[in-house]
């Protein structure tokens, strides 16, 4: 069960790397959020507690619905259908994704989890998410894609957190979730302003501030 969810995460990542359309990408991230939201339910060995349910529900709502919704709102005014050539092509991105996956598996072997992880996929997948997130931020031009990259990165960390640690204090968890939410909220606002100010959301053209 865990493995299934994790592999879904990997697939969504690969889809993101290869996707050129903005709307599809946002939906992919939303799907990934939902999958990850379910993850605590299955990783937890004990009988389901209220706390876990709350966490899962919060994650699903925030990652799966609120954040994508925000992003959709932010890019509504922009012509999302327009193709923008990314800095690294989609095919190359996919190949890179595969390489990153291999690297992640190797990392996972190098860094064994202490208490016998629930799934040997856990660490590799979270690393893969982190690398993919970085890659999306670096290799794409649109601000929205970069936010997606950040979310994927965050998701990777979340995966690790959920999988590696059984007990995280609720305050911290809530804080983390809230912080991510607010961050993306503000990012959304800024993307909205960017699109109004510049009539595009390509961040590689945001380079007036330099030395």
């Amino acid at each position: 069960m865990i493995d299934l969810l994790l592999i879904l995460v990997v697939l969504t990542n690969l889809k993101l790397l290869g996707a050129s359309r903005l709307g599809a990408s946002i939906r992919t991230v939303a799907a990934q959020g939902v999958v990850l939201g379910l993850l605590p339910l299955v990783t937890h060995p004990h009988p389901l507690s209220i706390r876990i349910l709350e966490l899962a529900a919060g994650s699903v709502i925030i990652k799966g619905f609120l954040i994508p919704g925000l992003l959709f709102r932010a890019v509504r005014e922009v012509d999302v259908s327009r193709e923008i050539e990314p800095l690294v092509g989609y095919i190359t991105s996919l190949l890179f994704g595969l390489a990153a996956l291999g690297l992640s598996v190797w990392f996972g072997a190098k860094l064994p989890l202490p208490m016998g992880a629930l799934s040997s996929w856990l660490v590799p997948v979270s690393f893969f998410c982190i690398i993919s997130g970085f890659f999306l931020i670096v290799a794409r031009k649109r601000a929205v894609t970069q936010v997606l990259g950040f979310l994927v990165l965050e998701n990777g960390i979340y995966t690790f957190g959920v999988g590696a640690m059984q007990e995280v204090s609720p305050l911290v968890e809530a804080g983390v979730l809230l912080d991510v939410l607010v961050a993306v909220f503000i990012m959304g606002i800024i993307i909205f302003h960017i699109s109004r100010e510049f009539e595009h959301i390509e961040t590689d053209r945001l380079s007036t501030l330099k030395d």
Partner: protein
Amino acid sequence: MILILLALAIIVGSGFLSLLRGKQVRSASWIGVTGVWLGSVLILYAAGSVLFKGGMESWRREITIPGGALSLYLDSLSAFFLFPILILSSLAAWYGTGYLKPSKKNLGVHWFFYNLLVASMVTIVLAHNAILFLMAWEAMTLASFFLVTFDQEKETVREAGWIYLVASHLGTGCLFIFFLLIGAQHDSLEFERSNATANGGIFLLALIGFGTKAGLMPLHVWLPEAHPAAPSHVSALMSGVMIKTGIYGLLRACELCGSLPAWVAWVVLGMGMASGILGILFALSQHNLKRLLAYSSVENMGIIAIGLGLGLLGISHHVPGLAMLGFLACLAHIINHASYKGLLFLCAGATGHATGTLDMNLLGGLLKRMPWTGATFAAGAAAICGLPPFNGFISEFLIFAGAFRAGTTSNGEVAILCLAVIAGLAFIGGLAVAAFAKAFGTTFLGEPRSEYARQGHEVEVSMRWPIVLLASLCLILGITGPLLVPKLFPVVSGLTGYSQEIFQRELGPLMAVLPKITLASLVFFAFFAVCFALRRWLLLGRVVEQNTTWGCGYLRPDARIQYTASSFTQPFGDLFHWVLRTQRWMAAPSGFFPKPTSFRSETPDLCQGHLYHPAFLRLNWGLSKLRWLQHGKVQLYVLYIAAVLMILLVWKLAV
């Protein structure tokens, strides 16, 4: 010591008061100056008792800064340095009241920094703790920087200030490491005399740091820029005593380091010779009076360094006579240079003040218009050339005596170095005569070369008295100097550790006959009086006419006929073109009806033009090549993070 603390408080306090009364020009000046005078008298009283009666005073309070302490220590070396510092400070301050009178600026600021400079110099020679020393050192740099940039509306002044500040700061950086290394050896930042054998490299740091302040070649670049830019009494103070704190630092560094390897003496001597010869050559080629004086300061610091180098050579080769004469010469030249360079800068200031220019090619004939300034300048010029009966001769005599002594009796490298010093110093002396004959001749003698010079007039009393006093000091020290030299031995003893017995044994005979120099001076005056009286008597009742200068039969000579500063130095410029790189602009006469001709030359600094400026440009160029790092693309910024993460993970985890 309480007296000194009180005096420091008075000096700084009056500076503050003056700052508060900045708008009232007269009262600001008088408060500042009075503070300096009062403080000087008090400190000199304390210093005099230490210098002449022996003993030492110390005072120490802990402060909260780690490693630091307010630790003051008045020994004979400190007391010795206090004399030139305070005497020149007081006289220059007095002069400054007159010099700044026409200025419309806020003089409170000026006097604040002036008094701060004086107080910081006093603190430097008294400080017995590295942190206190460095703080005073930087305070001195800053105070003098703000004094130099008094006329900061002028581009050249700003440029000069920048060079000065940067050079000083970089030099101080070396001092940081020097004191920390010394401190690490002693486990304390208090100054302690060391008897261990020192690593010469540490001393080299001190040499760079203090040498920058002292203006030794090739670290002198700030000096010819800053001195002309500053108001003249400030140039006098800086050139007369502030740069000497660099020498003070070197002397202390010798104490702190312990016994130094012989090659250090070679380096010091080499820098001294380079400064001396190149300094005077560049001085000779300058046409701005204050710039000339500034280069001459480089030369004189070179002579002081030669003295120091001979002293170190003597110590490391166990030739006590040479060592003691070297240090004596070093100390004597410090006093002498303070008096005549202070004098010359003040005179130059008066000249600039009265005429509005310092370009020698525009001056001339000022001796008749400014008799006091001219006469005192002549005295200073003779003194700086090391001519008897003025004081410059005494210190050069001591160096020569030491070099001759060791050069004739020692063997090996000591003899070779001493003979090199003889040749070098003789050459320096010859060039100095040329340089100052030019400086005095073109500025004060002959006919005015321009309207500037024609409007020259004698300066007011407050500017006249200090220069007259300094000129008398040059003469008095010149005549009585030979008698005073043995009195400096306690200072040398403190530095070298030689006892009175060794001094008597090695130098007793020489010291016993030194008064003959005084005698020779008196004889000279006697002969002069006889000759002059004879001339007066002979001319009495004879026909004494006035006519135009002989011009090879040309009957309408005018001022343009005169040799200019540029032409005067032309033979030197030719001979030393390979090092001076004098730039020339000449419109030579040609054809049957030649057009007006002209000749102009300019000698920019060698190190500045060929070493520091290119190095700085190179640095700037190299760094500008790296500026693409901040190219504005957020994608790559994130890539940096990823990259550094990977590097750190691989670097740290792979091990």
